[in-house]
């Protein structure tokens, strides 16, 4: 499953594109402007994209490159300017752009983690792509075209970042676009993949495709592009043919700023300064063989183009991610868990990781240092107030009071609270990731001062910033990272923005393995581990694992009871158990749809009960067949309406699935009591008998349930409708970008779910035989239990109808077993609880999301 090097095709890598004659403009962006919250992201940007050439867009982080491409692909609507395609003005949306043949490879691939590689291709690409030939063969060809060696039936979740990018690229090439936009496509790729990609791009260009290539790297521009446009601060700073401009001229266009003077004076280096912090050969997820040293009083900067391992390095040093290699701090070797304690981390994601927004300024500042305020077993409020107050004052935090909610502070003051907490915990090492992001100019200077003071007190400070100018002003030493490794260490006068950017954009180093640097190494463990990581996990990860497990449990439990009491397999028992399982099974099929969508339907139980109450007015003994049939139609109609309302509340009214369906739960219960205030209306005996008729000992309805589950399973795996359902549940945003209509999918999904519940209600009708508004509620919980036992993820995107059916059978079997084994009700709960626990552990082991420890 890795990207292996491939023989390059016969196109010479270094072939410099011939200077193009004036070519036809396919897509013309004129005077585009776009503002976000009043801040201009693009101002008066014009760009002509020509057929048969590669047009590179260069610029620093935040220069506006991605915004411009989102405009070009219809994902973002500009505030001003015009877009002309083939000479005609157009209003672009993602769908319209796709129709015109504009394909975009996003920097963050729009792939669906819970679906297989093949399914990702099929849901994203028009049917026409797969029209001629076996889909597998066509898909294999598409993947081979970009050098992606991944099994078609592996889940995309298991792919490396690089492989996901290649999949994204494969999708773009598959539709044979007229305009191909590539947004930093090579960032995670290895050399072989890059070469292959470039040869594909060259071939496409030779065929007349217009290519837009966004990058940070001058080397790539030289290698691939005909024309280059430089953006800085949302404006075009220059456009030229690549052959007409030197690297130095391009660098001047990219940087183009002078240093302002908000920075505190640097430390004066002395020869006897001790090395207080030392890293040797650190390798972890996203960074590789990193070495650095810092002396007393130094601020060490980490520079590079965003996403080249800076954040990963910082997290490893903060003890938040595992690493191999040696870290010495204050004369002692430190491991990850020591660093978690000794180092303090100021995260880039202030709101989600740095602060507890609903707590007060005092609580946020004090939480890491509570040990300091201990007196006896309790906290000394006085000591806490004194220390926290003093620190906040020294940092000049402007807050209405210590007990104000931290969310009421400005960004700069919030960041100072984060720093206050860092300082109160008396760390041995301070690590700050983008410490001035979203902070106003005045507060920036304060933060620089604080960091300098901390360094001056002998605590090493490590700062990462996407703003090279900031690092130039603040740091004594800067390491520049590219693709997870340190490519240059700058000290003294070399610490300059120009040197940093030059190093970063000139970097040609490519990662060796072609995957995420270092990520794979972590798996090299012993035999058992390999078994657990490999074979067992692959089995548990597959769609068939729950079926096998459930069938095993069902058979084992059945066999055990049968050994105790042969009546267990009597026709009467098998028939009644399967009949009860049929009612639950249909409801569980409906619930499965909602869980696949990443939601949940709490209203299924009351809906089943309500529909039986409705039936008790139509499907009763003296009624003629026509009325009974009308009753069944009314039941279906109500189910459709309930599904429409649930889905619409979720998609259009902003309800969470729980809130929407809980509202429906209560409403349906109330309506049931409006129709009948007690049990009444006996169900037609003939109809009840028909519902419960059997073929031998097996209820016909159960056979229908099995058939329904199999058909639903088929649709889920092999039809566009099923892919859309799972795509939506897997990642709604990515699904939207590949063209899935989310509103329609969710709403129709709920309608289908309610219709399955209506079939369950028909079974309940036969089972209880009377209209009783109190009945049915229990199906909500038991259907969820059945679906979860069947391995359907509560997070959405993966699951199976057949497994839900088996879950329903198992639950019904358990109820029956308590009587056959003479167990108390307690055991029923113990059994169910244990099964769910085992299922949850097994499936979550098989399905780890990459949640890292967050201290």
């Amino acid at each position: 499953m890795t990207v292996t090097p491939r023989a390059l095709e016969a196109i010479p890598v270094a072939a410099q594109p011939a200077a193009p004659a004036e070519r036809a403009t396919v897509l013309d962006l004129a005077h585009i402007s776009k503002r976000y919250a009043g801040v201009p992201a693009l101002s008066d940007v014009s760009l002509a994209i020509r057929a048969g050439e590669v047009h590179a867009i260069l610029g620093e982080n935040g220069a506006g490159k991605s915004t411009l491409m989102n405009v070009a692909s219809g994902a973002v609507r500009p505030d001003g300017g015009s877009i002309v395609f083939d000479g005609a003005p157009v209003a672009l949306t993602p769908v319209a752009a796709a129709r015109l043949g504009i394909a975009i490879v996003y920097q963050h691939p729009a792939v669906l983690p819970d679906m297989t590689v093949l399914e990702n291709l099929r849901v994203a690409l028009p049917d026409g792509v797969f029209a001629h030939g076996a889909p597998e063969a066509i898909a294999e060809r598409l993947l081979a075209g970009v050098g992606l060696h991944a099994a078609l039936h592996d889940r995309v979740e298991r792919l490396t970042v690089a492989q996901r990018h290649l999949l994204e690229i494969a999708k773009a090439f598959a539709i044979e676009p007229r305009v191909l936009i590539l947004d930093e496509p090579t960032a995670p790729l290895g050399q072989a993949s890059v070469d292959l990609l470039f040869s594909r791009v060259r071939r496409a260009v030779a065929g007349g495709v217009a290519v837009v290539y966004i990058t940070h790297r001058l080397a790539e521009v030289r290698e691939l592009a005909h024309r280059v446009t430089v953006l800085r601060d949302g404006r075009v700073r220059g456009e030229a043919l690549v052959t007409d401009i030197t690297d130095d001229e391009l660098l001047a266009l990219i940087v183009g700023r002078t240093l302002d003077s908000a920075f505190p004076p640097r430390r004066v280096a002395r020869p006897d300064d001790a090395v207080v912090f030392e890293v040797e050969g650190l390798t972890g997820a996203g960074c590789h063989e990193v070495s650095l040293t810092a002396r007393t009083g130094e601020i060490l900067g980490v520079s590079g183009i965003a996403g080249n391992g800076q954040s990963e390095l910082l997290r490893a040093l903060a003890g938040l991610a595992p690493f191999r290699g040696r870290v010495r701090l204050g004369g002692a070797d430190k491991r990850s868990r020591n660093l978690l304690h000794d180092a303090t981390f100021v995260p880039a994601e202030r709101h989600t990781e740095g602060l507890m927004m609903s707590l007060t300024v005092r609580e946020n500042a004090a939480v890491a240092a509570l040990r300091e305020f201990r007196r006896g077993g309790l906290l000394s409020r006085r000591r806490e107030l004194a220390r926290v107050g003093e620190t906040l004052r020294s940092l000049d935090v402007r807050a209405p009071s210590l007990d104000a909610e931290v969310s009421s502070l400005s960004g700069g003051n919030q960041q100072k609270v984060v720093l206050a907490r860092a300082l109160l915990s008396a760390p041995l090492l301070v690590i700050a990731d983008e410490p001035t992001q979203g902070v106003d100019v005045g507060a920036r200077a304060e933060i620089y001062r604080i960091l300098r003071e901390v360094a001056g007190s002998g605590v090493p400070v490590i700062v990462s910033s996407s703003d090279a100018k900031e690092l130039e002003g603040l740091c004594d030493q800067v390491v520049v990272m590219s693709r997870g490794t340190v490519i240059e260490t700058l000290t003294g006068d070399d610490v300059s923005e120009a040197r940093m950017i030059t190093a970063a954009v000139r970097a040609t180093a490519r990662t060796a393995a072609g995957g995420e640097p270092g990520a794979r190494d972590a798996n090299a463990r012993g035999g058992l581990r390999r078994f657990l990581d490999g074979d067992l996990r692959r089995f548990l990860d597959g769609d068939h694992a729950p079926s096998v497990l459930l069938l095993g449990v069902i058979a084992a439990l059945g066999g055990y009871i049968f050994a105790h009491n042969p009546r267990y397999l009597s026709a009467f028992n098998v028939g009644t158990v399967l009949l009860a399982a049929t009612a639950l099974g249909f409801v569980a099929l409906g619930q499965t749809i909602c869980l696949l969508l990443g939601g949940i339907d709490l209203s299924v139980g009351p809906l089943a009960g309500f529909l039986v109450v409705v039936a008790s007015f139509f499907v009763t003994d003296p009624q003629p067949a026509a009325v009974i049939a009308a009753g069944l139609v009314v039941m279906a109609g109500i189910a459709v309406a309930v599904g429409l309302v649930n889905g619409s509340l979720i998609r259009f009214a902003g309800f969470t699935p729980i809130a929407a369906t809980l509202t429906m739960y209560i409403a349906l219960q109330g309506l049931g009591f409006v129709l009948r205030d007690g049990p009444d209306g006996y169900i037609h005996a003939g109809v009840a008998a028909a519902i419960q008729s059997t073929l031998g000992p097996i209820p016909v309805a159960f056979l229908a349930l099995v058939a329904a589950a199999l058909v639903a399973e088929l649709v889920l795996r092999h039809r566009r409708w099923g892919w859309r359902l799972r795509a939506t549940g897997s990642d709604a945003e990515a699904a939207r970008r590949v063209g899935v209509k989310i509103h329609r999918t969710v709403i129709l999904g709920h309608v289908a779910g309610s219709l399955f519940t209506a079939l369950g209600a028909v079974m309940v009708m036969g089972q209880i035989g009377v209209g009783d508004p109190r009945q049915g509620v229990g199906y909500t919980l038991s259907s969820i239990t059945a679906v979860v036992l069947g391995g359907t993820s509560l997070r959405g995107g993966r699951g199976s109808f057949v497994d839900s059916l088996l879950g329903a059978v198992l639950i019904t079997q358990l109820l029956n077993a308590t009587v056959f084994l003479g167990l108390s009700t307690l055991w029923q709960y113990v059994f169910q609880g244990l099964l769910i626990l085992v299922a949850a552990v097994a499936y979550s082991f098989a399905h780890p999301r990459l949640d890292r420890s967050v201290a």
Partner: protein
Amino acid sequence: MKRPRPVTVIAATVPLAFALAGCSSKKSSTGSGSSEPTHLAGAPDWCGTRKITLAQLDGFGGNSWRLVTTASGADEIKKCPSVTSYQYANGNGDTQKAISDIQAFTAKGVDAMVVFGDAGQAMLPAIRSAYKAGVVTVPYRVEVGGTAGTDYTQFVGASFVNDGVSWGNWIKRILPGGGNLLFLSGPKGNSQGNDELKGMKTVLDDSYKFINEAPYDVTNWDPALTQTVLTAEIAKNPKIDVIVSDFGPSLVGALPVFTRSGRSIPALATSDGNALGCFWKDNQATNPDFKLFTVATGNDNVRLAVDWAVARATGGKPPDATTFQAPVFEDSVSGKPNPVECDAALPGDIYLSAQLPRATQAVAINNK
């Protein structure tokens, strides 16, 4: 006596493959009245000589009243040695579980079952299927619809109308000029409350005004909900002359609200419970209007159902009665048939009106 025959197949892995041969022919003898009753010497009349197994099924078995009732049923069964095996199952308030219990016992081959069908009519198809499979089936206390001999062997009801009449007569005696009545019953739509109201209405004219929601305030027979509902009603209504409830002990939690708001606790017409008796004893001196009248809370209803089931299954002589008549138990005004009783040494949630000895009740509720 043919029963569904066990099938000897290998335990197949696919439920579909549960293969089956059994037949569903009914048991021929369900102790129909045609044959001469038998009698096991030394046992009650209803205990015949045929050996049987019997199951007691509860729709909801959690609270102390149910625990005492279950223990009472077991106690009654012990009187007949012909019952060789006794089993119990608790539906836990889940209709599907209660239905499953009936079907599983039927499949397991018990000869007789007594069923507390909490879910009411919704239980009828399951009860009917047990009866049709040849099990002597006796639903009791909760109306499940259907008819004896077609859907089940015999229904042993309780006369809730009769309870209502007893309360009504007492209310007329202590409050001859009419007044405000507050009536609390169990879950919404339960037939017991409706029957009790019907009984009261046969005795009380329009000068007695029910100030609750029609037909009764819903408490689910849950002490916590009862306290919430009653507290609200006390705050809302400055004048409450009599509180009527079919679960007396559940009132105890909320009654002190009267005292705290400077009002006397009013008269109570309800069912008995040790906690209620003791509460009356502690508070009657300071609350001049606090009179208490109780009917037996009906734990012994199950005994009549067991008598019926055992008689029909063992070939004994069925009892004459098919309905349990809850006797009047306490009257603080007349002292007849009993003055208010309290056994402060025992737990509050036992029922002094039940036949089961107090100490045995205390064991039953503590062993839950």
